[in-house]
């Protein structure tokens, strides 16, 4: 049996506050096979981004966070790793692309310097010349054909779309097993977003990288992912291959989400009623999705 790149089981997360204990993830299970693109889709506050932060090992550093369940990355239980070992995984075996590229790059260093730093994560002794060559190669892959100009630029001198491509190149430069993309391109224009997603899709296919794709946009998920998990208030309510979930959404919540999306084919604004409905129906699983 193949070892999944990521295997999350019964993940729970709660926060202790002065007044009470608040649970925000109520037992999430999710897996990603090598080279598979999996989306986690839900509304704000549903628990998508905290899940990503646990996978990265960032929330574990927060003292008020209570985490239980298991997160196994390439066969290693993250819980058994020390903070230092987890830190070593970040930026090497698992990397991340954020929503707003311009604010995730360091504003006071040139791109060339930042790229060198990225490459040093796996190859601490890499010299500037070799780093440039390797980085130029990566930039070519994201269709940036004047790498020298980009290396000499500060992030504010480049457009948002350009910065996003630089981020993607950096995220893939160390050949990670898992790329976590949290709402990539949401801050970009529609045509730029479409290009960026297409590019990212081709690249991860080529490098056989697994992706955890976090988004609230159903259309974007459908274009990008192989499989989708729908999350609602800290619970997975539906999962399956994209084609099947989008064609035949089974859970009341997924159906409501789908019904709320205005269609390019017209037909008027969606009518979804005023009252929030009860979506506490059990998990709906579409067959042939992933493996247990």
């Amino acid at each position, binding site marked *: 049996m193949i070892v999944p790149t990521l295997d999350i089981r019964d993940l729970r997360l709660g926060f202790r506050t002065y007044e009470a204990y608040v649970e925000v993830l109520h037992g999430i299970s999710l897996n990603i096979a090598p080279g598979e693109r999996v989306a986690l889709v839900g*509304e*704000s506050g549903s628990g998508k981004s905290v899940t990503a932060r646990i996978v990265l090992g960032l929330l574990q550093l927060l003292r008020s966070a209570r985490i239980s369940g298991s997160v196994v990355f390439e066969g290693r239980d993250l819980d058994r790793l020390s903070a230092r070992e987890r830190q070593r995984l970040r930026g090497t075996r698992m990397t991340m692309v954020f929503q707003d590229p311009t604010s995730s790059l360091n504003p006071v260093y040139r791109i060339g310097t930042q790229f060198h730093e990225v490459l040093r994560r796996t190859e601490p002794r890499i010299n500037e010349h070799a780093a440039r060559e390797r980085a130029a190669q990566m930039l070519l892959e994201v269709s940036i054909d004047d790498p020298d100009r980009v290396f000499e630029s500060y992030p504010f001198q480049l457009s948002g779309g350009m910065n996003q491509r630089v981020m993607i190149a950096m995220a893939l430069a160390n050949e990670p097993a898992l790329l976590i993309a949290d709402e990539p391109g949401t801050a970009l*224009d*529609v*045509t*730029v*977003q*479409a*290009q960026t997603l297409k590019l990212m899709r081709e690249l991860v296919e080529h490098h056989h990288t697994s992706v955890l794709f976090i988004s*609230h*946009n*159903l*259309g*974007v998920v*459908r*274009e990008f992912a192989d499989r989708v998990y729908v999350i609602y208030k800290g619970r997975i309510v539906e999962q399956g291959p994209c084609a099947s979930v*989008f*064609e035949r959404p089974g859970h009341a919540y997924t159906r*409501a*989400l*789908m019904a*709320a*999306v*205005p*269609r*390019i*084919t*017209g*037909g*008027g*604004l*969606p*009518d*979804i009623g*005023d009252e*929030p409905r009860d979506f506490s129906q059990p998990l709906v699983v579409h067959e042939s999705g992933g493996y247990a």
Partner: protein
Amino acid sequence: MSPPLLEVHGASKVFRLEDREVPALLDVSFDVREGECLAIVGESGAGKTTVANLILGVYPPTDGTILMHGEPLPARRRREHRRAIQLVQQNPLSTLNPKRTVGASLRLALDVHRIGERRERPEIVATLLEEVGLPGDFARRYPAALSGGQRQRVAVARALACRSELVVLDEPTSSLDVLVQARVLRLLEELKPRRGLTYLFITHDLSVVRNFADRVAVFEKGRLLEIGVTEALFAEPEHPYTRRLISAVPVVSREEELVRDRLAEGGLNA
């Protein structure tokens, strides 16, 4: 066809910086008819916000004129103009004063524009909240205690409070979740005929435009490329840029995908 409420004639806007000039809008003409919803679509740098600011009177055009009810709008707007043209922005958290209750924010609009008798105003506030689907006791709440959708409803109520004629909606639902977006859009759709409103709807979301706007104006780099009735524009987009915009729309069904791809190639009848 209803008469124009607002006419923009040959409007240009050039921003003069210390060392150079930035043309933001280049010789743009169009009109907004009474009771319609005209969508302004385009990407960043298209001039959408400049159009809105010219109409709102934030700054005057470098060239050209803007007429309302056939009368030119002066560079320095009178209170009457400020009342008649209202704005609902993308992020209501930054446009509602966090230290004022919802009721106080609405009341301020009534006070400034002297709407209703002084003692009637609390009642008008309550009616406004009801109109946008919020409970009356929300008047005592602060914006921080409201959800995104509720805040946007308050922003809409404030635009209504002024008995406005034209409401500029600048990406009013882009920061909302899809279920909330659907409800807010529906509210806006219902209010338009009931309150005799006209909308100028600024957005980059073509799927919303397709279902919400009566006419669409496509902007790119400060130029108006194409303007037409929504149905027609989405059956036969003429400008290559419009087609490119449509081809980039993420869709959720196979049926939409087919329509989108045919539009991107030239049109449904091509």
